[in-house]
């Protein structure tokens, strides 16, 4: 089988060489979910249509997400003998221009975002020199946006499964040691050393073992795993096979949320191809051991990202966590020793075996090694998927890579770690992003969501928003989480509605601690983070709400009013036309006024006015 693999690799490399350096134009279009939502499929259609009529042979490759989601749809064109050019925000009009370029026309320089590779074009930066990419190190994501995720040969040509081959040359202890030296910690959030988790499983008594990939990326705003699954599914499969063969599992399960249809489709194709190639099956890559992978679709419960709840769901039971011990490594799926790692962790395992532990550990801090992917979102200029060495500061990520706050407003806070992450103020932006530093600051790494907020965000309302999520997603099993998150939410609702009291702040804090300490699983244990960190860093906003009954950010409806400024109002009546309660009156071309008695503070008038005449002000109590 290894001979078979060598042959396959050779063919794959030749084909890849032919594709990337041959004399046929190659056009790639990023058609992952982010690209599609920006219209990439239309772009692709136009390109195909435009070029179909011409006597021109060219190759189209659908690739995954390159990372700069804000610039989707992304298209690259490699013409024989010319530099590969990356075009950004390729709408239908732009697509026509690009088609013309492929057909021999001028390079539309205004659309060119960067060049890729060694050949350069004056005036156009190389991709890794662009501000969004400069601080990044693309390792886990190296194939995303580059290869066709539906073609295993692309992956193989770029090194896939060589890590598996190398792992098989090592005995089990050597593999564990290699992992140990890499310093890889779980990328699902808790950061538990991967080698230790595998070792626990190996040492647990039992005949049957399982490896599970947690692809139930439930954080709103997080899409690292989705992008990886859509752009490079073999990275996961390779890591999972290494894990399975190392811990002695014959079966692996990928628990992937059903809301990821494209990722599921890509996984299905990848698994089929890996079976055909002999990486999966009765004798995985000549290891003499069987290994198979099955995919289970999750049904959208946030808590099913918690490992014991995930296992319950996989077993066909209601997805609720159970207390540990026993840990899944000892008693997991159907009571058997089970390792659960997330998508990024397993993809990193593949990398470690492809390139070696030392290579992997080049980046990172003393205790947090390697690179980590993040979904950089919120009110940031360049939202997208980024990968940086652990230890990079939040400021570098938000301002250098992300381009700072999008709106021109002032930066206010950043939330890390998803809905149960804490939120940090500007003075904490220089802490290095690693497991310990974030925890010390009151937040968590989580799976890697980063949400940027500007000064218009009310931090009490922010906490309320995430407690609403947590209270809704609480599985209901244990009291502290089921009832505590609900209490927190109701108190926060009261505060944002002007019904809070000073003593509520103390109650909030006490409740937060009791929920965190008392809850059964990580959901409850982290759900109060948004409240605690905002109380810690933005306490004055809470105080303003309960004492002076004001919302400093002018965000909470019960504390604000809308007024029309005499100077700026042109009497265009646009606001009056859209007001859902007919609360705005005034003669055409005359000053309009808002009737405070009927105003529901929806803010449509403010959003509509192009003259800046509608002002948000503190309501008079």
């Amino acid at each position: 089988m290894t001979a078979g693999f060598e042959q396959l690799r050779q063919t794959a490399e030749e084909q890849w060489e032919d594709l990337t350096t041959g004399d046929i134009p190659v056009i790639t279009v990023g058609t992952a979910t982010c690209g599609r939502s920006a219209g990439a499929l239309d772009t692709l259609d136009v390109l195909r249509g435009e070029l179909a009529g011409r006597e021109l042979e060219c190759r189209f490759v659908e690739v995954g997400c390159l990372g700069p989601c804000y610039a989707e749809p992304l298209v690259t064109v490699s013409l024989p003998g010319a530099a590969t050019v990356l075009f950004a925000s390729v709408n239908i009009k732009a697509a026509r221009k690009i088609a013309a370029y492929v057909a021999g026309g001028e390079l539309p320089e205004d659309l060119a975002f960067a060049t890729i590779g060694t050949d350069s074009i004056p005036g156009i930066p190389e991709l890794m020199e662009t501000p969004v990419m400069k601080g990044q190190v693309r390792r886990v994501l190296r194939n995303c946006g580059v290869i066709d995720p539906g073609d295993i040969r692309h992956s193989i040509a770029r090194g896939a499964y060589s890590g598996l081959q190398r792992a098989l040359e090592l005995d089990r202890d050597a593999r564990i040691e290699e992992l140990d030296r890499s310093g890889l910690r779980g990328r699902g959030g808790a950061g538990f050393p991967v080698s230790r988790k595998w070792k626990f499983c190996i040492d647990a008594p039992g005949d049957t073992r399982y490896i599970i990939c947690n692809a139930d990326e439930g954080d709103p705003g997080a899409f690292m795993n989705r992008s990886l699954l859509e752009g490079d599914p073999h990275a996961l499969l390779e890591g999972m096979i290494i894990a399975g063969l190392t811990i002695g599992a014959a079966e692996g399960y990928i628990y992937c949320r059903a809301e990821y249809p494209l990722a599921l489709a890509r996984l299905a194709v990848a698994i089929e191809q890996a079976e055909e190639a002999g990486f999966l099956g009765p004798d995985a890559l000549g290891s003499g051991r069987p290994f198979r992978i099955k995919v289970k679709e999750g049904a959208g419960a946030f808590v099913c990202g918690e490992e014991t709840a995930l296992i319950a769901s996989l077993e066909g039971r209601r997805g609720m966590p159970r207390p540990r011990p026993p840990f899944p490594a000892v008693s997991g799926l159907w009571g058997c020793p089970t390792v659960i790692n997330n998508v990024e962790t397993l993809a990193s395992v593949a990398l470690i075996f492809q390139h070696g532990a030392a290579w992997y550990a080049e980046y990172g801090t003393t205790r947090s090694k390697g690179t980590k992917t993040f979904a950089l979102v919120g009110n940031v200029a360049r939202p997208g998927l980024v990968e940086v060495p652990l230890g990079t500061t939040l400021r570098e990520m938000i301002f250098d890579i992300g381009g700072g706050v999008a709106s021109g407003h002032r930066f206010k806070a950043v939330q890390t770690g998803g809905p149960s992450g804490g939120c940090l103020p500007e003075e904490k932006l220089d802490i290095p992003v690693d497991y310990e530093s974030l925890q010390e600051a009151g937040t968590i790494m989580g799976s890697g969501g980063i949400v940027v907020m500007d000064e218009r965000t009310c931090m009490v309302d922010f906490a309320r928003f995430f407690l609403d999520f947590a209270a809704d997603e609480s599985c209901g099993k244990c009291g502290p989480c089921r009832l505590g998150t609900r209490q927190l939410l109701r108190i926060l609702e009261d505060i944002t509605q002007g019904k809070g009291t000073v003593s509520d702040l103390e109650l909030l804090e006490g409740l937060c601690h009791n929920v965190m300490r008392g809850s059964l699983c990580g959901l409850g244990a982290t759900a109060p983070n948004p409240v605690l960190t905002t109380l810690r860093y933005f306490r004055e906003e809470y105080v303003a709400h309960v004492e002076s009954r004001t919302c400093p950010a002018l965000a909470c409806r019960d504390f604000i009013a809308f007024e029309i400024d005499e100077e700026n109002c042109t009497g265009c009546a646009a606001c009056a036309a859209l007001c859902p309660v007919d609360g705005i009156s005034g003669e055409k071309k005359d000053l309009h006024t808002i009737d405070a008695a009927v105003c529901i503070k929806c803010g449509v008038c403010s959003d509509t006015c192009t003259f800046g005449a509608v002002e948000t002000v503190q309501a008079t109590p």
Partner: protein
Amino acid sequence: MSQKIEVSIDGSTVLVDASATVLEAALEHDLFVPHLCHDPDLEPAGVCRLCLVEVDGRMVTACNTPVTGGAEIRTDTEEVKETRLGAVELLLVNHHHGKIDCEEGTACELNRIARFAGVDETRLDRYRPPDRTLSKDTSNPFFEFDPSICVLCGICVRTCDEIVGVAAIDFVQRGFDTTIGSAPGQLWIESDCVSCGECVERCPTGSLSFTGFEVPEREVTTTCTYCGCGCGVHLGVTGDRLVSARGQRENPSNEGRLCVKGRFGFTFVNSPDRLSTPLIRRNGILQEATWDEALDLVAEKFSGARGDAFAAIASAKLTNEENYLIQKFSRAVMGTNNVDHCARLCHSPTVAGLVQSFGSGAMTSSSKDLGDARCTLAIGTNTTAAHPIIGLQVMRSIRAGGKLIVVNPREIELARYADLYIQNRAGSDVALLMGMMRVIVDEGLHDPEFIEARCENFEAFRDSLAEYDEATVEEKTGVPFEQIAQAARMYAENSPAAILYAMGITQHTHGTDNVLATSNLALLTGNVGLPSGGVNPLRGQSNVQGACDMGALPNVYPGYQKVDLPEVKAKFETAWGVELDDAPGLTHLEILAGVTAGPIRAIYLVGENPALSEADATHAREAMEKVDFLVVQDIFLTESAEYADVVLPAASFAEKDGTFTNTERRVQRVRKAIAPVGDSRDDAWITCAIARRMGEEGFDFDSAEAVMQEIAALTPSYGGITHERIDQIGLQWPCPDASHPGTRYLHAETFPRPNGRGRFFPLEYRPPDEEPDAEYPLVLTTERSLYHYHTATMTRRVPGLETLRSEELVEIHPLDAVALAIASGDRVRVTSRRGEVEAHALVTEVSPPGTISMTFHFHEAPTNVLTNAAYDPVAKIPETKVCAVRVERA
């Protein structure tokens, strides 16, 4: 002895069980650690979060944290107290109406914990009160669920899953809206709930509460009157009424568990329909009479029918002592061996078959040990419906990874949990089991050492397997051979493997052969003589085992001592001081047939209802109509009592002392909880009174205990049994002498046969007596409902049970239903060669195509009018499991 380790709890060093959890360790040392979701019968759940403690400085829940040597456990740190107080406060605010004491009073465990945790009620006002109203679910007739008190500890959910195995309920919805139920918006009664009440019993807050029970003045521990599981039950008594029931934890047969009948099914005792005075037929009408009048008449008529003109039908619902007295009366007073009882209709092939092969016709294992079987072959038993508490052991075995093979023409509930479900043609068990054994022998999966050392007649048996080739077996059973081979391997390769069977095996014209096939299988694989294997006939009635043991059978005295053996006859003649007959008497069917075609002129019918229970019931009714003198002794005016010349009102099980012997051979106490209702008398008193009026001696007992002393003296297997020894926990026979501890499982060393060996029997397949044809194209098989018992004389007088199942249903497969244009709920007429019955149809895939099924619980639709009285030549059991019928819309 488990290992002990040292840990420190709140500063004191104590020795604890090495396998204990921190919670168990603390509780063992009388240190209260609050907990709501812990139950010793269930796996730790860590749900309520109240048992927080610090172990070596780390806060953990005590219930799921194992102790480790040298661990420092603190239950009283400030952080623990504060977190716990917070958790308790949240529960009180949201589930307890914001009060420490709930309205239900002191039964609520949360009250106690709230006080322990130091809740200050005034501080609860800080919290936001719950912004929802929850309504009670009162849909179940026996209990209700009040979600506003529920703390969602999940004990009910886990009980239903881990103990009952049904998993009817779970957490539904999520977040704050989470509640307990089967599905959002679905009522409890609409779920798979089997109404056993185990969850209600364990609910720590009273959120689940019994609706019909009252707090009793006192409790009396006795044995359940229903099936042969023989569960220990504490009957709650107030005045002269039974007001509650709960399981007896110390009883190994049920370990505190009860089924729906065993918990809620005793209110028939208080029914106004109870017979309260003797009745004598005068001018064709049953009229009230005094005991003197009734007893004089009976004594006079019986005196004139001595010898073979007399027959007694005893009862599997009576105590051992009463059955002993009835057979003694028949033999010693009436001079005949014409005494039998309803075991003839259920397990006579068991006695006939297993006595031949093993030397003893009883269940070989203990109920509790069945839970440790590595494989269970449940053939011809609807265990969860007919023997629910043994069903729990099957569930326990599966939960521990044991295999389950279910063989049944009907896709019974157990089939859902089976590793292998085989839907064979009704009446094809010999072919199926012999087919399995052929695979076992062909593949060398049998146990040659066991066969060599402990069996006989193997070669003849092995040769008889030749005719069970693949094609033949498939043809007879209608089952793909591969399934049979799979069953063979599963059974043979997972030891200990237990065979469970009931009437699906016995109620056939080849019932004895079926039983012998099961014993062949167990012998072949060495699955006899070990705790969790064996052949386990599940006996249907509370004392059917005892009634057989007591010799309420026409061919044996107590302890299966044969009436035709001279030394046995001599022994009883000496003991009873009379001359005895050495000719075996008539069996159940023969007694009734003997009215028209034989010598029978007087029948003493005790606690039995042949008008509904006898195959070809019309003939039974004719016999009762015709017989010169019929005495019926019962607690209700049954359908059979309506034919009586004299009706004698008997006391129920709750009104007398004595013993029952359950299916696992355990002799247990029955205790008088209340005085006999009205002017009714216990059966022992009545039988003795008749004998005495006939001028006979040997019927002067002042207590049931005194009867048991006579039994023990004459019955070797009961030799060591006294009421005193079984005061708390029963003893399993054989128990030959006062120092014998009883027998947990049979045939450990040797078989009680002349040469001590188990015997193989070559078997030939014989089809059912009546097979479908053009006129009667469908097969009718009979079944039982979980909610009713036998002819439902008792259970239909329990209103809640009547609510759960109120009528006969003809279960028919959709394919047959479509062909006959029948839909669920349609009234249908079922006709056999012997009669017709009308009932509503239930279209269900539980019944296989071509086979319908009915219970025999409902007098409005007397199923046994249809069934075939053709019987097994050895055991003389009628073939109530198979007859040919046609079905049409009524």
